[in-house]
């Protein structure tokens, strides 16, 4: 992993360091980084409830 750029949590908008992110998700081949479990769940909820 060479990507050292800080990314944003897609739910709460917080800046997350991909290296240190507590939770990350690969979704349809794309990787998302979250600040916490909670944000990941909300993300998943939105994706699956369509």
């Amino acid at each position, binding site marked *: 992993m060479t990507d050292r750029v800080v990314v944003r*949590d897609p*739910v*709460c*908008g*917080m800046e997350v360091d991909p290296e240190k*992110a*507590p*939770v*990350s*998700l*690969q*979704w*349809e*081949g794309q990787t998302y980084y979250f*600040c*916490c*479990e*909670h*944000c*990941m*769940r*909300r993300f*998943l909820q939105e*994706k*699956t409830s369509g």
Partner: protein
Amino acid sequence: MTVQAIVRDPVCGKEVDPQTARYALTREGRTHYFCSSDCLARFVTDGTGAADEPNPTVTSPEPAPSSEAWTVPIRGMHCASCVLKVEEALQALPGVHRVEVQLATQTARVEADAAVPAAALVEAVRRRGYDVETAEWRLLIEGMHCASCVERIERTLRRQPGVLEATVDLARGTAHVRVIPGVAHRKALAQAVADVGYRVLAVETRPIRETWVHREYRDYRRRFWVSAVLTAGIVFLELPSMLGLTTGPLPGLWTQGLLLALALPVQFWGGAPFLRGAWTTVRRGSADMNTLVALSTLTAFLYSLAVTVMTVIPHAGPDTWGHHTYFDTSATIITLILFGRLLETRARARMGEALGRLMALQPTVARVLRDGSEVEVPVEDVQVGDLIVLRPGDRIPVDGEVVEGFSTVDESPVTGESVPVDKRPGDRVVSGTLNQTGRLVFRATQVGDATVLQQMIRLVERAQASKAPVQRLADRWSARFVPAVLGVAVLTFLVWGLGGPEPRWVNAMVSAIAVLIIACPCALGLATPTAVVVGVGRGATRGILVKNAETFEKAARLRVIVFDKTGTLTTGELQVRTVEVLDPAESEAEVLRLAASVEQASEHPIARAIVEAARARGLESLAVEDFRAEAGVGVRGIVEGRRVVVGTASVLDREAVPADAAARARARMEALGQRGETPVVVIVDGRPLGIVTVADRVRPEAQAVLRDLRAMGVRTVMLTGDVPTTAAAIARELGIDEYRARVLPHEKAAHIRELQATGSIVGMVGDGINDAPALAQADVGIAMGRGTDIAVESAEIVLLRNDLRGVVEAIRLARATVRTIRQNLFLSFIYNVLAIPLAAGVLYPWFGLRLHPSVAAAAMAMSSVSVVTNSLRLRRTGGHGKS
């Protein structure tokens, strides 16, 4: 990083290639791969992966419903019947196993599943017209990043036992929780938050229990004073008519109006606590003392109001109503009962003092050595092994062992030991005690709930809230009492109304009011618990922990006390008793000096006793060469070129001692052995020089304690592993009534059973080391404190001070407590039994004697106060007072 070629989808089990997987979840470095979005979503939402559980086939099981014991503070209970109602309310909740409500401490001890929500407890109590005391705690939380964390923490906190409401403030990094103190635990909350990934810096709690007792007290005080002034006005206005004068200071109409104006606030503001209480119970179709007070005062007030109205409005009806008003009656009753409550509340605040004092001993912060510097941390964060620094004047925050420094520590608040204790490296320090003179560094050995102080607080709390068997009876009795009294009041009303003197119905009303007022079973409800609370508290301040109320009843009836010799009658250490010279040419000092010189190389307890004795006499030990020890026989070595042997009688044979000298030595050793001492012979160059005997060090206070016990009518029995001759000698020396020799540790309980078979209540004093079964078998197990483990399960009484006098003191305290309970029950019972017929007017036909309602109110207020005051006398039960 090696990547497995193929992994399995944790949900459907299909094989997935990590390189090409389109769905994956990474948590704390662990990655799961999925075949589809559905599997991923199910993985997350099913909670299969909610915990950081890498193996999804093992679902984290719901924790088995563990039973917990809580102490729930209840507000608004004033009567024994309230106790039963709150008990019923809580008992009815699903998941609640056992409930014990205490009037004196205003608490409910609830044993329930941890899953029982706090809100349900509160709701159940509130529905019955009482309330649960709640507190607000503040958690300082680190690591909250986003708004969605807030919800997560709040949800976690709300799920904790005892938490009613939780609000997280993201900006400040704090969480406010409304909790039931005694159910919620600071540590549990902090842990729960930590478990979901945040750091709790501190949990701030403010002690609120004290404040609400005081708040209640202030409230009653205000109502009382206002009512008292108004009532004084009423009595002044009513005085002329009471004295039979026709004219008062003001014309009739004015007087009536003024009376009404004065009585109105007394009735509805001063009496508001009773009216409110009565309303909630009436709505539920039951009755308690509030009902009695409300019913009686409202009757008097409303009747008087009607009379007043009819004085103003001319009416034509028959004049059976009379013209006399009873505003004075309703107002006086309320004022006097307020006065009673006022005193009762104040006394209750004072009863809790012992516990409050214990709680106040717990420091909130500790100065911990971290990386060479002193850091102040909240006491909850102190870990076992932390090094803690104490400056002079610091209270000790947790239990530990001194590693550096020298100081004296005042242990009196915890153990009752009045003399400050020296502390040097290796000594134990106990939480709650006070460092006095020097700087100490100690290593924490017990922290959090495990410290001696916290254990003590819990034990005292639980003991104070426990119910004596006699109280259960009193509670049940007084619960049936109120309906019965209502019946008596109705009967009184009817009898007076139908056959009494004119004005019949007015007299009937007054008498019925007197019955209602006099019959309040309050004193009965307070009789036992107040004595128990004060007794337990008194014990705690003297270093005597009594586990529950029932123990008092049993300890007061003790007829036999069994002592496990070692550790109780004796300290368990050996001590040199006698030094006898066999060779007239030698001196005692020389015998001891030579023996000590050889023994200094040995670790045996006898050796240590001899070395210590020599040191105590100022004898310098000499160098020993060629030292050898033989287990069970003795030691030998060369001292100043002389061959010295110290050992049991058997060494006499091995050293080729001349037969006559050996026989003489053996005879002396046997004679000394008969006295209960263990002799060793000192042989120098083949000649027996002298005999040294050692024996258990008898506690200096043992004799006096046994004498006291006998004077109290308690038979004393000693259990010992010694041979009968030794046991007899010790029993004689100490003045013990009876002894059982050659008792093996596992036989102790059988001896207790045997003594119990004679029908006596048997107590057992032990040091709690290997006598747990015996302590448990005894009716009252008394453990001599070793300071660390005060929650000895098998013992009913724990003595924190290493002093046998505590046994006598504990029995005296138990007897005093039981005596107080009896006095209280008698006071309140006799009072009700005598006063009700009097109030009903049973004596009126013959003596014209009846009880004015105001007098009844005064008497009833005084009866509660006298019971509480009588219990408070227990606080002065001293160690050396009369038993």
